[in-house]
């Protein structure tokens, strides 16, 4: 019986549920001294570029509700990121568990998080912007009018010479 239970435990994948976020990026960017060197769990969108660190790890910028923070993570965790946020692209949403530093001693005083584990909450997805046809027509019309007025000025100017 015990052997069967053990085999089931080994074979059935453990369903890892997300840890409940203990904080947010907004709270971390306004954090007080008490939060320094504490373990935090938060979620956010990855934006911009994955920047190589001198020690082989990867710097990632994460944002949430208008706040941003630098996260240092292992390359294998960074590999989970399928897209980074930029124009017309929402980046991968991650849940990060790590140690928050108000002034990191190994990164010359930077306010950052050193990730210990990273989980994907949602993959990146494209954002579509639609072309405003009325604005385009109005713009082209104005360009034509502006051009005509410029031409008119040129004619008057030549006549006055």
């Amino acid at each position, binding site marked *: 019986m015990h052997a069967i239970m053990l085999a089931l435990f080994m074979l059935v994948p453990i369903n890892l549920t997300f840890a409940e976020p203990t904080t947010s990026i907004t709270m971390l*960017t*306004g*954090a*007080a001294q008490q939060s320094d060197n504490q373990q935090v769990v938060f979620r956010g969108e990855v*934006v*911009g*570029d*994955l*920047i*190589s*660190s001198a020690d082989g790890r*990867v*710097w990632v*910028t994460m*944002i949430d509700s*208008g706040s*941003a923070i*630098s996260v240092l993570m292992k390359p294998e965790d960074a590999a989970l990121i399928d897209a980074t*946020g*930029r*124009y*017309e*692209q*929402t980046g991968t949403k991650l849940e990060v568990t790590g140690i928050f530093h*108000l*002034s990191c*001693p190994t*990164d*010359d*005083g*930077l*306010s950052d998080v050193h990730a210990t584990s990273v989980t994907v909450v949602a993959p990146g997805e494209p*954002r579509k*912007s*639609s*072309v*405003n046809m009325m*604005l*385009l027509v*109005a*713009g*082209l*019309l*104005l*360009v*034509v*009018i*502006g*051009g005509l*007025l*410029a031409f*008119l*000025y040129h004619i*008057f*100017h030549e006549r*006055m010479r």
Partner: protein
Amino acid sequence: MWARFYKQDLRVIAHYLGSLLVLFSVAMLVPLLVSLLFGEWAVSVRYVFGVGMTLTAGSALRLAKISPAQMERKQAIAITALAWMVCAFFAAVPLSLSGHFQSPFDAYFESVSALTATGISMLGDIDHLSVADNMWRFTMQFLGGQGVVVVALSLGIFTRTGNSLYNTEGREESVLPSIKKTTQFIWRVSSGVVIIGTIVLFIIFMFSGIEPLRSFFHGLWITIGAYNTGGFASQSLSLIYYHSWPLEVIVMVLMCLGAINFALMARIHHGNWREMLSDIEIRTLATWITVMVLLLVAALMAGDFLTDFSGLMRRGIFTIVSASTNTGYDLLSPNQTTSMLTSGAFFLIAISMAVGGSAGSTAGGIKALRVGIIFKGIVARVKSVLLPPSAQITTTYNHIGKHTLTGDILSSALIIAALYVTTYLLGSLVGIAFGYGALPATFESISVTSNAGLSSGIAVPGAPLLLKIIYILQMWMGRLEFLTLLALFASLIASITPRARVKAFVRRRRG
């Protein structure tokens, strides 16, 4: 007797503002082309509209006066002063339609901040901003750093204007014999620095793992932001985003270059290297930055933030250089700046911004030249107290040649310095009246007036509208160094005060 504006003056002013706007509409082709290159179709529509609106307005205004004669000084003053606000208005049009601003007024604030090379941003969700919109922000910062009027002069857009326009944009020295040659020299130097800086930063970013195209644009933007001492960034974490000390070193070099007087650069370009060592402005700036760094070290040691050597060197020195050159790039998070720095360190950064860089450069503030002249004036005055009344004291200084320190030069420096300090104080009182702390309000007031752009967190999208209006006025005044703007206001008041009323008033007073 104040100079009044008449209908004829308004037509000339309208004509030249129109010419500037036509030039500005051409500048707007830069982001339009970038948007087409990157397939940002929705963005390109906004810039087509922006180009059309600016071109139409500019062409219409030009028709106000077909062939103006030699420009008068009062007209030059009005054109220079209004150019910034008018160009910012049209620049804001495509930005305000982006959806990244809480209001069209915030987009206008952003444009003023870009053109005056201040660098405080009202953008929301900057990390998702299009490449074209970023290109426009930095194009404006380049044009603004050089001087909108300087750009127009170098392109020969304004003819028959003499020194009028050039001097009214806060530039006192002619770099080369003719104004056109001077402005073209400024343009050439700036373009050269931008090209070299972009290449160097491109290489640094490629090694960091950033994609080639993004490495190019980020290199271009940071170079423009640093050299024009504007301080805009394309990511929400500013320069912290890059985690690159080589980048920070290059940026410090660019910021210092941007804070050097163009006239001095011309002298060095012609082989007069020794001028750099004997120049009062360079000496003042070097001494000032050294003293500020030492004081900052002492102030930080009194607290428990940035007390380690590497952090101090990297973030502390960078912050002082950024503040002293009025660039505004920050390696400290807003939280670190406002709650972890000691109040002494915070105050020192504010004072660094207040003094600023060199006159005739892209930097703002009171200017190192005036500080040096005022110091020499104080020394001369102390000497005169100690020596017999009959003693003749002559004080000289080196600045693009040897000069004697006269009463006029000293009083001119003191007046401008006094205007700066008064504006700093008035602006801080306004911030306090809105409920902000005295130190942050003072910091913010100094930052906007000196066009530095470091922020204590007051100038944000949610700030009161009236406060934003005041800050716009301060940015405008600081960029033009007050006298041009004050002269414009005085002339405007004189123009709308009916002559008959003034004459009647004077007659009554005489009895």
